[in-house]
Every structure is written in C-alpha cells, then in structure tokens.
C-alpha cells in the first residue's frame, strides 16, 4: 500500500501485533551505521543477537519495498531515499532526521561516503591527472552543489572556491579527453552522486568517458588498491558508503577522503500511527527482542 | 440371418475429399466379413466408421446411416462409449500400452469400473486363453508387454479386445506387420473367434480374405463395387473390376 491507501487502513492498525524487524545483511554499511548509532555494536556482525523472526534484506530498495508491504514492520534506510519511499521516518532521540541536524551533530545515525583513488598510476598519467582534478572538483562550490543536489549531506563554507577559480591548476581539463575512460565504481549507495558528478565534470574536463561499474563498497578498496587493482575490473576511483576498514582497507596516504555524510533513518510503515519518535534504547530493545509488540511503545 | 450392422447410403468426406460414396451393405452376425480393395479405397475409413473412431478426426463429415442392433449409431443421444465396448477393434500395428501384460488386458474392464482383483484375474486369463496366448505368457503376466514379439503383441491386442466381451471385432490388416508363422496363428485364432463374435476384417492379402472370410466386399475409390459371399467373389465375380483386381497377379 502506498500513500493513497493510508487513510483507508489506518484504523485497522492492530497495536497488539508483533513488531516485525527488518535488517540489512551483515555486510551492509547502513547496518553498521545503524547498530553503532543505537549503541548495539555487537549486532553489526552477529545475527544471533537479533530477535528471532527478523527479516534480512539485500539492499536499501528491498528494505523500502519490504517495510512498505508490512504495516507492522520497522527498518532503517538512507535518508536520501526517505522522501520517495512512502515510509514514515522516525525522529531519533527527539531529533528529526534532517540535513541540518546531521551537520550540527545532533542526529547521530549517520555514515560517511568515502572515495579512494588508485595509488599506482603507472601507465595512466592522463587518467591520474583527470582523477586528481575530479577530487578537487568535489570540494568546489560546484561539486558540493551537485553532491547536495543528489542528497549528499555536507557543509558548505564561504571559503569554498569555484571551479572557475582553480581550473587553471588542472591543465588536463583544457585538453580534449574524448578518448580517455575513467573507471568509477564501488558502493551502489554512492552511485547516483558519482554519476551526477562525473557527468557534469566530464563536460568541464575535455569530455572524458565516465565508466560506472558500481558493485558494492567492498569493491572500492579492492579494485583501486587491493587485490583486484590490477585485475580485469580495476577502477580509477572507488566509493564506499562507510569508513574504510582500518585493518583490511588501508589506502595510501592522500588517496582517500570523505565526500559527504548520509543519514540513516529508522522507518515504519505509513499506516503505523503508534510512534513518530524513537529512542536508541527502544530501537535496541526492539532489535534484541525485548520489546515485541507495538502496544509496548504506544 | 441376423445382421450386426445395417449400413445405408453412407457418405463420408475428409474436408473436401470424398472417402466413402453411397455405401449400402449389411454385415451379418457371427460371420467374418472381409473388406478388400486397393490402397486408399476407403477400407479403413469404413471400418472406423463402424465404431465411430472417425469422430476423433477433425473435418470428417458423415451422412447416411448405420444401424447397430437396430439403433442409429449417429443419433445424438447414442452412447458412443458403450458402442465401443460392444464393437472392439484391432489395429494394423500391434500397439500394447506401456504396462504389464496383465494391466494391458485388464485395462478395458478397469475402465468399466471393475476393480475386484479376482474378477480381473479371471477375465485376463480367459481372454489370453481365447487369444491363444496364455501358454506363452502365463509365467510373466507382470512383465512389460513391450517385450513380447510382434505376433505375440498382436495376439495380446486381440486378447485385450476380447476382454471387453464385445459382440463385434473390427480388424484393420491385423497381420500385415507379422511374419507367416505369426500370421497363421492369428488366422487360426480369427476362425476360432468367429464362433462367438462378428468379425469385420480389412486385408490386402487376397488369399487371406479367401481363406478366412464368409463374405467379401470389394471397394474402389470409396465406392462399394461388389459385395457377396466370399466364394462367389473369388470364383465368379459379377463386376469386371472385381475380377480384374482379384485375378491380378498379386497374392
């Protein structure tokens, strides 16, 4: 049921029903941000701690369609997709999930979007120059505007420069790069932002070809500096929707950084008229199986 | 003399093609009637009409009538299934079902709703004995019927037809796929069956017709050219066409 059916079914919401708990799988960056944010870090990689009968879904999209189909469900999604999702986003600890609240650090369910470039550029000097320019572009007024336009959460400051101001530092962009392919990849969550950035930056940088092959955050490090960096699916720049692991994904200095933030928001079905706000304590109890029915929250 | 079938002004068309043309003939009870004629003359078609197996072919149009035991078999309320239990049929190529010998013969009775194992056993045995097959297969009733030789398979098919206790048995070139020894056995069997059943047989083999049948009908291009006692047809046919065909060099 989408928005149009809400009024018809609201009255039928049965508070004595069991809460159905939806979670992403253990590899998900969203899951990591969520469980860490609610103070339930052990559950990031341990399904056994979760209430029995939880449902594990394979992506943000599945999460949306699943909770959309279950009036008694609870889950968490990326803030960027909340608006189109048809779900109700809950305030967390009394703080509404908004960009402003993320930036002023009052809203704590969030995760960083990261990028990492190659460290070994042997034989790809032009590509290196373009990627370097691209990274610079991400922190210009222009680049930040585009990131924000695609739901990335970031701070702008008056000291930000325009691309016009710095483009002369990047000679490569005044050349014709129509035959150069830059390979983007990594997280699917960052795909939309990355595509928007590359499309407009290509126009500003000699029309290089942007080849996007987004297969997951795990491939970001793997394909730029890790085990597959010389393999068939190597990338020039990869994105991750979480921090790079300090053990297994250590990139060379200066090759990685944060693009922006994404917030995670706890969602319930649009028919759910029980709550609009939830505390970390409550969510934790729900996911651990200590709170099992909606009436306990009413 | 009583008739099993009375055929009157029977016409049959496959689409636009006329296959039977104004056939009128009686088929007497407890005799063997042979249908002969060159290939494509309509023998099989006529035979299949007698138990309405032609119903299964699209595009068949029939007029005229056939009476079986005084009843019009084309009448709307006529029970075809019942007709087929009374008028059994044996085909040119032996085609037992992919089941055991026992199940093959019990098939018809079972379709009639007979379930009692003992009754079925009795029917199977009797049919096999009547079809002169019992001694050869009595020890392997549970084995696949496909493992029998061609001649045995054809006798099995006859046994299967007999098991229904029909009044009439239609046979379409029942021996043409068999070797002479198997043929001889089947011919003996047919002569034996005549005591109890009315038999209509299609054959290419002039001598077979002469040897076993009481009456012979000669068809040509869908028309019934001549129909008479077998000895008359073979010794003294009225029509020159019949004579030409009979005395052809074939045998």
């Amino acid at each position: 049921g989408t928005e149009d059916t809400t009024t018809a079914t609201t009255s039928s919401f049965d508070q004595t029903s069991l809460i159905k708990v939806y979670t992403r799988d253990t590899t998900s960056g969203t899951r990591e941000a969520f469980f860490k944010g609610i103070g339930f870090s052990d559950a990031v990689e341990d399904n056994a701690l979760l209430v029995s009968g939880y449902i594990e879904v394979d992506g943000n999209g599945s999460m949306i369609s699943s909770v959309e189909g279950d009036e008694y469900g609870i889950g968490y999604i990326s803030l960027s997709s909340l608006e189109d999702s048809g779900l109700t986003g809950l305030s967390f600890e009394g703080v509404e999930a908004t960009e402003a609240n993320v930036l002023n650090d009052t809203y704590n369910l969030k995760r960083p979007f990261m990028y990492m470039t190659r460290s070994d550029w042997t034989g790809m000097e032009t590509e290196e120059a373009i990627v370097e320019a691209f990274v610079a572009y991400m922190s210009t007024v222009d680049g930040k505007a585009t990131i924000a336009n695609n739901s990335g959460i970031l701070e702008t400051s008056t000291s930000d420069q325009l691309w016009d101001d710095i483009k002369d530092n990047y000679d490569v962009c005044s050349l014709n790069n129509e035959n150069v392919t830059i390979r983007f990849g990594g997280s699917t969550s960052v795909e939309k932002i990355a595509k928007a950035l590359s499309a407009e930056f290509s126009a500003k940088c000699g029309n290089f070809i942007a080849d996007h092959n987004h297969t997951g955050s795990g491939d970001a490090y793997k394909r730029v500096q890790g085990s597959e960096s010389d393999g068939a699916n190597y990338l020039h720049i990869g994105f991750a929707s979480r921090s790079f692991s300090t053990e297994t994904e250590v990139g060379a200095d200066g090759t990685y950084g944060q693009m922006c933030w994404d917030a995670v928001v706890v969602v319930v079905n649009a028919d759910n008229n029980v709550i609009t706000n939830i505390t970390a304590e409550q969510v934790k109890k729900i996911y651990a199986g200590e709170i099992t029915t909606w009436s306990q929250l009413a | 003399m009583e008739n099993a079938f009375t055929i009157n002004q029977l016409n049959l068309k496959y689409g636009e093609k006329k296959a039977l043309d104004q056939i009128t003939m009686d088929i007497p009870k407890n005799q063997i009637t042979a249908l002969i004629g060159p290939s494509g003359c309509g023998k099989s078609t006529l035979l299949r009409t007698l138990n309405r197996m032609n119903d299964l072919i699209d595009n068949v149009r029939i007029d005229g009538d056939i009476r079986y035991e005084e009843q019009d078999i084309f009448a709307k309320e006529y029970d075809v299934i019942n007709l087929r239990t009374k008028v059994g049929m044996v085909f040119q190529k032996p085609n037992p079902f992919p089941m055991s010998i026992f199940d093959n013969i019990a098939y018809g009775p079972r379709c009639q709703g007979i379930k009692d194992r003992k009754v079925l056993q009795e029917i199977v045995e009797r049919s096999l004995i009547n079809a002169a097959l019992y001694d050869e297969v009595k020890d392997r009733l549970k084995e696949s019927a496909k493992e029998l030789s061609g001649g045995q398979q054809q006798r099995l098919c006859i046994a299967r037809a007999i098991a229904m206790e029909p009044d009439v048995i239609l046979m379409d070139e029942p021996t043409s796929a068999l070797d002479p020894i198997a043929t001889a056995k089947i011919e003996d069997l047919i002569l034996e069956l005549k005591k109890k059943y009315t038999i209509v047989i299609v054959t290419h083999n002039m001598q077979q017709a002469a040897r076993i049948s009481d009456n012979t009908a000669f068809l040509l291009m869908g028309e019934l050219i001549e129909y008479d006692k077998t000895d008359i047809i073979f010794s003294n046919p009225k029509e020159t066409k019949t004579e030409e065909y009979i005395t052809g060099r074939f045998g």
Partner: protein
Amino acid sequence: MKFPIFKIWDVKKKNRFFDKLTYTGLLIPTILSASFVVLIILFITERGVAPFLPSQYGDLSVNFLRFMTGTTWYISPNIYGIFFIVINTLYVVFLSALLAVPVSVFTALFIAKMTPKPISGFFQTVVELLAAIPSIVFGVFGLGVITDVVKKIATVFGMQTAGGISALSTVLVLAIMIMPTVTLLSITAIKAVNRDMENNSLALGATKIQTLFKVTLVSAKSGIFAGIILGIGRALGEATAVSMVAGNAGTGPDFNIFNTTRTLTSTMLLGLKETTGLDYDIRFSVGVVLIIVIIVTNLLLNAAKKRIGKFS
C-alpha cells in the same frame, strides 16, 4: 550404359581422410564441453574449502562440523551454520514442486489435448514467453502481488507474516517460475505419445479422460519427469527472485510456511558484493554445498525416473 565419372580416387581418399578427422575432431568439442564442469568445481572448491583451513584463516577458520550441523547463519567472527539452510531449501523446493507439477502437467494436458489448435497455440506461446522472463521480474511480481496474497491468507489463519514475506511466498514464486519449464517439457512429451495407442484405448471403450490419464500420461511420464527434474534444478539454483521474498531467516530449520526462510542461493547472493575475506569465501562454501545438493537431488530423481519409466 555406365556413367563415366567414378574415377575420382583422390576424392575418395579425401572423404576417407575427412571421416577420420571427424572422429577425432568431434572429441575435442566434447571434451571441451565436459571440461567446464571440472573448471567450475575446481574453481569453487578451491575457494569454498579455504574457510575451513587454519592455514588460510588461522584461528578464524570455520569449524567444519559446526558448519554442517549449525542452525544459525553468521555469528561474528566465524560461526556459520548451513544445516538448517539446506533443510529449508529442500523444504521450499519440495513444496513448490508439489504445487507446480500437477498444475503444469494439467496445463500441458489441456494445451496439448483439450483445446482447439489456435487457442492451444496461443497458450503455448504464452508459456514459452514466460520461460524467458528474467527471474528478477518474478521477484518483483512476488513482492508486488504474491506477498500481498500471502499476507491475506495468513490473516485468515490468524497468523502474522512479515508483510507476506515468508516461506509460502518463496514457494509460490518458485512454483510460478518453474511452471513454464515443466509445462513445456510435458507438452512435448504428451505430444510425442503415439496416437495409435490412444485410439486403441478409445476403441476399448475408455473415455477420453480415462485415456488421457491411463494411457497418455503413463506413456509420457518419462518425458514429464525429465521436465520435473529440470524444474527442480532451476528452483534449487534460483537466486535473485528468491532472495527478494524469502526474508532470509537467520536461524532454523523452520517448517511454518508463514515464517521467513533462507535458501542456499539467497545466502550466497546476500551481500556477496559488499563483503570480503572469510565472509566472502564462505559464500563459495555455500556454493559447493549447493552444487552437491543439486547433484545428489538430480541423481536421486534420475534413479526414480528410471524406475518409473520401466515399461515404456
């Protein structure tokens, strides 16, 4: 009078030589075709075995026994139990075959024997087209339609499902997915039944329905069974659609059709691209188990098929 042409000995020699060449030449593609399975098995066992080797993962290596008998999937850092997943998979696939087979066989009977040609041609084309729909579309259909139906059914039984996401939905999606395959192969098998045999049955006074059940189906059973085997193989190997409606339960086995479930394939697919290290390799171990399950099921079904087809 003779034709003056058969003196071309060299042509004959060429023919003979070509014939020899063919014998050996044909062996090459055959061995090539056969070798792929070796390649696959080597490739995935190489990775699939790694999680159990202390030499690879040291203290983190997975305990094989616990892996094979476990009833929970993934507890950090190294506890993976696959036993319940195998059971759930077989359960779900069994139920979907139970649903799909009669419907498919009846549909095949209907198309092959009970409808006039233009209509049956139309239906057959429908079924053929469905066989080519990408499985993800069935997943979408499952999520959009089937889960809704299941949710309502559950309410009737006084149960609460997760918005319809459940073993039952998985069963239904799989059943719909394998129906085209089973139906098409059954149609082929039924059409191949000798018409004479059916006529014989009719001539024995059997009704059309009796003939269909007792002769046609019996003669076609071997072909129909081949279709069922293929369908079950497809159901076992299906990943995309299943992972959308299964719910991926973390523990089990669970035989309640209204609860969520987890299959081997959904386990492999889930997070495959985000994960690294042990958690990545363990998915290949699941793949090995899946292949073994498929092969064993196939062997058993084929043995059953041989027995069924005894008389034909």
